[in-house]
């Protein structure tokens, strides 16, 4: 594929930014669903209990660490896969 002109680059960048925002919202949504499901199961009160709050905090921290680690592995594996496919 030919290189992109300046205008095309800008258009692409703007699209990718929009995509990133959408992506973030989706990650956030999954995080809420996941941590809520894992941590909240006591409906004798309408406020999160101390236990539930602590669990959620740990869940968020752990989820972020996990995403970072998996992001690194993904980049490595994806690069290796692309290199492999180029060889064929």
């Amino acid at each position: 594929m030919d290189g992109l002109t300046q205008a095309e680059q800008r258009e692409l960048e703007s699209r990718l930014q929009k995509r990133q925002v959408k992506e973030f919202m989706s990650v956030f949504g999954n995080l809420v669903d996941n941590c809520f499901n894992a941590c909240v199961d006591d409906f004798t009160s309408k406020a999160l209990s101390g236990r539930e709050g602590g669990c959620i905090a740990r869940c968020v921290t752990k989820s972020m660490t996990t995403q970072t680690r998996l992001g690194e592995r993904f980049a490595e594996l994806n690069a290796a896969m692309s290199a492999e496919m180029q060889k064929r």
Partner: protein
Amino acid sequence: MSFLGFGRPQPTSAEKIAAIENELKVVAEMHSRMIKVCTSKCIDKTYREGELSKGEAVCLDRCSAKFFEAHQTISEQLQREGAQRGFGM
């Protein structure tokens, strides 16, 4: 555009941009699926700790490697058998 039969028309701006965006979309989706699957298989759902344990970390590394290998294998098998059975690709 050539009338002599050679020289395909150049892709338009919109087509070029769409093609790149699509490729990135495919990669991003694979990334997202891998996170879901490996989190589900490796991470202790009781969240007693906020830190990733050594076991969980190793599990994530292995899970991501296996995920990619499964992706390749399935892709290849689908091409072989799918062609026989008439799955379009």
